[in-house]
């Protein structure tokens, strides 16, 4: 994050820095160009005035000569006058075509120049060694038919100074035809011109130079360049095609502000150039970049310094700020970790930053409080649930204690054996069984199953069992007992619970069995001979629903050895993990397969079979089995 901010700041800084450099640079270049142009133009016009003045003098003489042929003394007088009135002219000649002045002489060219001590020295040009007709100063104006300035040259006679000659052709008219007659010249020293050019550029800013029509250096700070190198030889030596093009443009009389490659000025440089129109030469002002942009370079250093310092400051500020922003977050993260480990009592330090962090911190605190409350509630609820569960357990224990659990119950009675077992489901269920002796010959037994589960079922079971025991102990027929129990249960049965019961009274002296059923599963009879069969008792309506329900009593006689098996639907409807029931048939098969026929073994056999069938599937209902065996006397 800090890195990102710093990078962004750096990018902005660099962009701003780059743009300002670029802007200043352009500004400087524009200024330099403008100044260079102004200075050059002023200088050029100054030079032009001087050269224009020089040009007028031989032109005037040439016009005079057009009239006719003067005498030699008058010609010399004119030249002397010319020199005396124009101190900037070093020497002047009037050179005639062969035999044009004098039919007998090939060469005629009086020349007068300034001598060593201010005097004027007359002489004559021309001879076998000096055929002036073929020299540039003579031939070029002749062939071009116009006045021209010569290329610069060193004049040894004048003290090896650099000169240029202005040559004006003059003509005569023969039979109306213009005939070239000769050339008037004016030599001028170029020293003043070189001086002006040198002064054009302040020494510390760069330098200026002058090139002739052929591109040859007339003035240049490097003396070795003068009259020896041309802008094109420099271009060729450095294979710089662009410099050559610049040179060509200079000679064409072009103006411009251009960049120069390293080799021209020893470093990258800019050049302004403009022509000297009368000479056809060109002036160049060279500004080395290093000097041009010295100001910018200093500015760059300062800006970079400021930028660097600002950057460091920014770095510190960012670290401090990001530290203050993230510190509460880091604390919160630590505290969250502690809370996650279960310590809800952690103190969350208050934040007063008036921003998202404060909101977060606040929310965090709220969450902590909510969590605490939730956990407290949960503890309370759990405690309540545990209490209920323990109460249910107690209820269960009480319920179970209703059931006779002492076996054998009547050891003195040898005529029959009775055994019962109730395997309670996890929840409190509603199964019940009971047996007791009515008198010396009759034993009452019953089994039942209350609808639903839980405490209501348990209570209803308790009521039912109590009622059955109270009523059946005086009953003669089980059906009547059931009717009475039904009537009692139906009274005020607002909970609409019901119970299935089957019960019987066995005269264990005779083997006569009275049996009645109120909606319960059919008992099984295991005959002494070994057959296993259903006891087809009359069906009756379940107890607790219809007050005026009637029940029938089945009367049959048990043979000694017969065994009666009573059970609840917890047996036949026991489920395995495939959601299959144990079924009635399985019960019959189980009973038939039992080797031992005493009631306890039978009950244990059924229980075992059911458990094996159910496997790991949790038991959902009470399982109750009661076995009664009639032994007879």
């Amino acid at each position, binding site marked *: 994050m800090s890195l990102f901010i710093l990078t962004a700041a750096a990018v902005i800084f660099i962009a701003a820095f780059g743009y300002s450099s670029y802007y200043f640079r352009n500004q400087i270049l524009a200024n330099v160009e403008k100044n260079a142009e102004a200075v050059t133009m002023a200088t050029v016009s100054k030079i032009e005035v001087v050269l224009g003045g020089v040009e007028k003098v031989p032109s005037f003489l040439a016009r005079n000569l057009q009239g006719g042929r003067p005498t030699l003394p008058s010609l010399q007088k004119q030249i002397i006058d010319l020199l005396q009135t124009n101190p900037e002219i070093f020497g002047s000649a009037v050179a005639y075509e062969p035999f044009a002045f004098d039919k007998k002489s090939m060469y005629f060219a009086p020349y007068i120049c300034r001598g060593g001590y201010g005097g004027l020295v007359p002489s004559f040009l021309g001879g076998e060694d*000096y055929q002036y007709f073929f020299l540039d100063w003579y031939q070029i104006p002749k062939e071009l038919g116009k006045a021209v300035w010569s290329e610069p040259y060193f004049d040894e006679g004048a003290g090896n100074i650099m000169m240029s000659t202005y040559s004006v052709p003059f003509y005569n008219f023969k039979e109306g035809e213009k005939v070239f007659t000769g050339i008037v010249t004016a030599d001028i020293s170029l020293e003043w011109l070189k001086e002006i050019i040198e002064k054009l550029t302040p020494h510390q800013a760069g330098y200026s130079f002058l090139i002739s029509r052929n591109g040859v250096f007339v003035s240049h700070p490097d003396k070795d360049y003068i009259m020896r190198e041309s802008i094109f*030889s420099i271009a060729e030596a450095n294979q710089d095609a662009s410099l050559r093009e610049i040179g060509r443009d200079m000679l064409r009389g072009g103006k411009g502000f251009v960049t120069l490659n390293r080799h021209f000025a020893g470093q990258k440089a800019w050049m302004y150039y403009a022509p000297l129109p009368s000479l056809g030469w060109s002036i160049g002002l060279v500004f080395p970049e290093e000097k041009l942009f010295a100001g910018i370079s200093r500015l760059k250093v300062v800006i970079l310094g400021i930028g660097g310092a600002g950057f460091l400051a920014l770095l510190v500020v960012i670290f401090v700020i990001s530290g203050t922003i993230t510190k509460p977050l880091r604390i919160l993260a630590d505290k969250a970790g502690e809370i996650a480990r279960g310590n809800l009592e952690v103190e969350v330090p208050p934040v007063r930053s008036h921003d998202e962090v404060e909101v977060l911190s606040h929310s965090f605190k709220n969450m902590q409080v909510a969590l605490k409350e939730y956990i407290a509630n949960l503890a309370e609820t759990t405690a309540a649930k545990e209490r209920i569960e323990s109460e249910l357990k107690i209820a269960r224990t009480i319920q179970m204690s209703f059931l006779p659990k002492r076996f054998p119950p009547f050891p003195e009675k040898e005529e029959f054996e009775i055994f019962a077992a109730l395997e309670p489901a996890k929840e409190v269920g509603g199964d019940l069984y009971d047996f007791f002796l009515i008198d010396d010959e009759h034993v009452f037994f019953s089994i039942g199953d209350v609808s639903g589960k839980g405490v209501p079922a348990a209570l209803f079971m308790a009521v039912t069992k109590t009622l059955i025991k109270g009523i059946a102990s005086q009953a003669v027929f089980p059906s009547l007992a059931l009717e009475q129990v039904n009537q009692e249960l139906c009274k005020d049965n607002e909970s609409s619970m019901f119970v299935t019961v089957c019960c019987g009274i066995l005269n264990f002296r005779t083997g006569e069995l009275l049996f009645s059923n109120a909606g319960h599963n059919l008992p099984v009879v295991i005959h002494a001979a070994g057959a296993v069969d259903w006891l087809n008792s009359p069906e009756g309506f379940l107890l607790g629903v219809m007050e005026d329900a009637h029940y029938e009593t089945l009367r049959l006689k048990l043979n000694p050895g017969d065994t009666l098996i009573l059970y609840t639907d917890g047996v036949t409807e026991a489920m395995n993990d495939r959601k299959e029931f144990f079924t009635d048939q399985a019960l019959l098969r189980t009973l038939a397969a039992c080797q031992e026929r005493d009631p306890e073994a039978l009950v244990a056999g059924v229980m075992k079979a059911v458990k094996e069938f159910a496997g790991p599937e949790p038991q959902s209902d009470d399982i109750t089995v009661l076995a009664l065996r009639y032994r007879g006397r």
Partner: protein
Amino acid sequence: MRTREGILTRSVLVAAVVASLLIILPGLAAAAGELRTMTFIPQWLPQAQFAGCYVAFEKGFYREEGIDLKILKGGPDAPAAAMLASRRADFTTMFLSEALQHREKQLPIVNIGQIMQRSGFILVAKKGRGINKPADLNQKKVSLWPNFQVQPQAFFRKYGLSVKTVVQGATVNLFLRGGVDAASAMWYNEYHTIINAGVNEDELTTFFFDQHGLNFPEDGIYVLKETYERDPEGCCRFARATRKGWEYAFAHPEEALDVVMKYINAAHTGGNRVHQRWMLTRMKDLIQPGDARDRIGILNPGDYAAVAGALQKSGLIKTVIPLDEFYVPCLEKH
């Protein structure tokens, strides 16, 4: 304008002093021992056209051949033929066509080595004046050097051109200013001067005479016949050392340019290195035009016949002397 006079007078003075020394020196040298004292004057001002001689001198090749050589400053003030005629120099270089004309004028010189094989003489014109082929020169103004008219005139005849000729001076400025449509030029010298004055090569049309059947091989080494007869071995040694100098110069062009610039600076004749580099490169093209393994310095009989024939035809010489009277094949034997 006083310039020329000044140079002339001074040079004549120098030449006179040198000449008087030369008259005295051979006797001294002979007395001293094995080294032959000899003098050489190139036909023009110091430039890469004579690089072979300068390099041979600087590298001691002449001394190796037993020659104690003096090199004089050549130029317009000291015409080569006159320097030989007046015995002020033993050896010089000359164009073949010039040498034949001098021989005709009773200057008994012999060629002891034909350095250049190909003519560097060209006409150069501005395309801007509508000149692209020889026929375009018709009725145009062309500047010609007074002493070198044979080839151009033969060229004009060959193409049936009627040309207005103007005498060409020492510079090409007349051409540069547009005073003439075409000018004479040495490919190795004036042509590059024009380029170096800002005219691009593609703006120029060139007519190489050797490409128009007018190959007049130029620079050769010349001595007076009597000099050769007095010391044929010494003359051939000079030719061999000169050839070695050229071979060295072509193999080490920058070193050769250093030598040339040294002579140019000593003579104060101006000229820049770029120009000399161009000249040296062109000299190789002209001295060894075909194969770098070609032997330097052989005068081809065919070239000789062609040049002599052309001179005779233009009336510049009357008779063509046999090749073996004009040429000593010093550089063919070794």
